[in-house]
């Protein structure tokens, strides 16, 4: 009997303390400026939303039917195999990364990326092993979209590309420039090995998708408007890439509770 009383007491105490704690969280107040829109939201220009939504629905279906199941299968490969494929693909991108770093005036980063490419291609067996990372040559991605942004080119309007997903005018131009100027692709095409380009693009898509299975599912399952959530995520992610920072201090700060009750 005493034990039952103790359990009832503990349950009541727990519920009571949860109530108190939850009530305290409600006291954190919102600033009056919260009713204004944020910069990120204002920046998104989506005049072709209807068409974009239709393409987005197609991409979403293709993802659920083809890409996600394939990516889940890929995830079952031993992790050294996955890392090897990922490293190899990343190493192939490196020459254009160096070009973009130079175009953005990042001499030090360009030198480091060149070092990464040389070390990983030789000691890392054609880029399969990321030896460079172990000796402090960190990977830094740059693309033509980021270069154009650094030169002051604006986003343009938002576009959802069939199969390629969210983009904007500037980043689509950047993507086309990458396709045209990539030396590895150009060499393969000139040798009559165009299959290599298609295989590379497909493998890259599977590899990238396999890294965000849980995140995409969480977003898809819990979004009130999945299209808007992806659009916002795309812009925030690109902004972080253009600013060359993983530093979350630069992500817009929600104007929450600068003033307390």
């Amino acid at each position: 009997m005493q034990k039952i009383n103790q359990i009832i007491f503990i349950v009541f105490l727990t519920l009571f303390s949860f109530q108190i704690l939850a009530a305290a969280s409600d006291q954190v107040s919102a600033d009056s400026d919260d009713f204004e829109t944020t910069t990120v939201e204002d920046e998104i220009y989506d005049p072709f939303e209807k068409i974009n939504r239709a393409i987005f629905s197609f991409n979403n279906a293709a993802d659920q039917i083809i890409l996600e199941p394939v990516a889940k299968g890929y995830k079952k490969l031993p992790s050294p195999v996955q890392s090897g494929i990922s490293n190899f693909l990343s190493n192939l991108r490196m020459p254009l990364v160096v070009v973009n770093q130079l175009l953005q005036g990042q001499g030090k980063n360009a030198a480091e990326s060149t070092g990464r490419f040389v070390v990983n291609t030789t000691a890392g067996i054609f880029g399969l092993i990321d030896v460079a990372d172990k000796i402090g040559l960190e990977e830094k991605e740059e693309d033509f979209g980021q270069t154009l942004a650094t030169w002051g080119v604006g986003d343009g309007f938002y576009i959802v590309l069939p199969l390629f997903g969210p983009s904007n005018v500037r980043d689509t131009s950047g993507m086309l420039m990458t396709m045209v100027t990539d030396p590895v692709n150009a060499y393969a095409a000139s040798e009559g090995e165009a299959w290599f380009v298609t295989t590379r693009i497909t493998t890259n898509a599977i590899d990238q998708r396999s890294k965000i299975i849980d995140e995409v599912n969480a977003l898809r399952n819990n979004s009130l408007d999945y299209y808007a959530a992806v659009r916002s995520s795309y812009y925030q992610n690109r902004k972080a890439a253009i600013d060359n920072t993983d530093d979350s201090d630069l992500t817009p700060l929600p104007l929450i509770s600068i003033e307390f009750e």
Partner: protein
Amino acid sequence: MKSFISVCFVLIIFYSFNSQGSEASNWLKTEVDKILIAYQDPNLPSENRFLLIEQTINNNFAGKSIAIHVAKKSYKNASEEKRKEYIELFKRHLALNIAGLMQGYKNQEYKLIDARYDEKNKVNYIDMEINLDTGNILVTWRVLKHKERYFVIDLILSGISLVETKRSEFNSMLKTVDYNLSEFNKKLSDQNEISYSKIIN
């Protein structure tokens, strides 16, 4: 003497920022562990597991403030009753979102790698690195101190802010109901039911 006092002053300031950061990190670790332990317990029925996670999130997130922040003018123009209903629905929505996100990381190891304090905005930033087989993911928690307690006001994953994303998403949906919070609540309630059934199954 003057320089000695200056050095002491700088050290005290530095120490107080640092200690606030580490205090916030300890608090965050305890709360994150509560959620992960709930996920790792195989004997816990999924409804109870979510309830436990929801309570932990409600206690530690500034849910009401985030709710107001993301609904903008619709909240301002709504009746008190609809506001209350919206806050409750939003809190559940937030819990479902965080729980959904953390479900994917339940078996991963993590460590808190950095904590810093933004004096201007009175916000703590705590960086958490989640170790995956194929690399690491950085999650940054934005934390406010209020009446000797900490509250999460946002979390950022690969440069993407949860609150900013929700704000954009909600604004898009509010547009379709002419910024009517009452209509919006119905949609939010439906979505919560779908998300809930997915998370417990």
